[in-house]
């Protein structure tokens, strides 16, 4: 063990800093991509053939873009969108820079998750709202999305975990956070202890997220 140079005394503040960075990246990504993904997913759903705002051009364009972006491995995507990141935040390094590719990828995935859950809403319910004379936007946000709320929450919980995963990879290219911590102190300095601590913390974060998501979805489903 080469433990003299970096003792736990000096490592603890770095670890806390890393946790903070991870929570920051995940939170910002989830808020921005959560909102953007909801809108893009709702547009995908609504523009489908036969749906409220059926529009083949919009639907197919979004569909193709999402299908192109989604299969790109995130670690490659991080560097591929470098120019975009630089244009938005001025640098490709650091926590803030990592958020840009995370937001783009998470938006795309959330859009698909949202679309799939909205498509599963009984078209008869949409028809009932139409027959009542509700406006189309009113039906989309007042009927369709509330009907799909429980599976949407589970979908977002799933995305929370995926975003934690993304944040760890962002660490690899200098994004900071727990991924960065595990690589520098665990992998590069052969410190299994640091790696395991990171794993444990990530597991706790994921468990807490999953627990909250499950609880919320259950409360809605129990109606």
């Amino acid at each position, binding site marked *: 063990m080469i433990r003299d140079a970096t003792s736990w005394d000096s490592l603890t503040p770095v670890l806390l800093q890393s946790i903070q960075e991870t929570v920051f990246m995940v939170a910002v990504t989830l808020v921005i991509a959560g909102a953007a993904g909801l809108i893009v997913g709702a547009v995908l759903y609504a523009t489908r053939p036969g749906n409220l705002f059926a529009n083949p051009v919009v639907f197919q364009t979004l569909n193709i873009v999402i299908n192109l972006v989604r299969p790109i491995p995130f670690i490659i995507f991080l560097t591929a969108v470098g120019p975009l990141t630089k244009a938005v935040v001025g640098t490709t390094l650091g926590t803030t820079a990592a958020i840009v590719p995370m937001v783009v990828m998470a938006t795309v995935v959330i859009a698909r998750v949202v679309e799939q859950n909205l498509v599963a809403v*009984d078209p*008869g*319910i949409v*028809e*009932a*709202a*139409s*027959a*009542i*004379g*509700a*406006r189309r936007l*009113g039906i989309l946000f007042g*009927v369709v999305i*509330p*009907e799909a*709320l429980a599976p949407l929450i589970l979908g977002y919980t799933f995305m929370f975990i995926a975003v934690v995963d993304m944040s760890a990879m962002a660490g690899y290219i200098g994004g900071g956070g727990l991924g960065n911590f595990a690589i520098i102190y665990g992998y590069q300095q052969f410190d299994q202890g640091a790696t395991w601590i990171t794993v444990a913390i990530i597991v706790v974060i994921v468990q807490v997220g999953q627990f909250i998501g499950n609880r919320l979805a259950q409360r*809605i489903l129990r*109606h």
Partner: protein
Amino acid sequence: MSSVISFEGVTKAFPGPKRAPELVAVDDVSLAVQAGSIVGVIGYSGAGKSTLVRLINGLEKPSSGSVNVLGVDVGTASPSVLRALRGRIGMIFQQFNLFNARTVRGNVGYPLKVAGWKRADIDRRVDELLDFVGIGDKASQHPRKLSGGQKQRVGIARAIATEPEILLADEATSALDPQTTAEVLALLRRINRQLGVTIVVITHQISIVHELCDQVIVMDGGRVVDSGETYRVFAHPEAALTERFVAAVTQGLPEGETLTALLSGGGVLLSVDVNEVTTEDIAAVLDAHGLRGTVVYGGVTDVLGRQLGTLTYRIRAEQDAVRRAAAELSQRTKATIFTGADAHAAVGP
């Protein structure tokens, strides 16, 4: 009476998959529905009933022809005019189509919210509606917890919330058991009588038309093959499909092995259509001729309180006496005699 719904030469075609020919769901239909009536649209599945009813509230637009509802040309109406019209037309569904994310109160109040009512007014109106449909105690429940009959009551309360002039019922009782069906039909009748709402009922069950509908429209392959006052349509069917619907409940004349078996029992068989005459009228005629008959085959159904069907009597008496009675009956309805000797001797209507 004025007509609240009128179709003129209405055709609705849906594009077929790929290069397949288009599907004509409603084919050159013309009809008029009088204010305050209950009209049944009957036909097998795929006859175009559901499309027909969706043309009324503009959920479907006609491919050609004109649909006029409450003075609005549905085919050319702007979205805002169409939304306003839909506030005057309620609709209920086979699968209820309630909003699961809302309570019963939220479901029934939704059309009022859409119509821009104030919260307090909505609450008051919802209470009134739930009492009217008989589920006043369920306001805070979620639809998933209700029985089928209760769900349809919520659907009905929601459909009549804005005091519509027309109510469309799309197979509204097809998912319910017979007892609940009877209750829902009674509720629909009450809505028609008390609130003066014109009701269009779509069904594949002839019993519902018989119990509820003043007028009937028989559809087959997208076309209206028979229509008019319910008793008249079923008593004097113009289409083969109408005859099939009637025969399904009334059995008609005995044929084949059934007839042979009945004849082997002796006596004279007299079949009489209970059609514009009642079973009492028939009994009176037989009585006047000193005859007594026993019903051995057939069936009579009730169409809005009037009997309709065909009954076959076995009469143990002289053939000539039965013939004289049959001749008298045949002045008012159709009477047919079957004897052991000559298998089939009809006396015209």
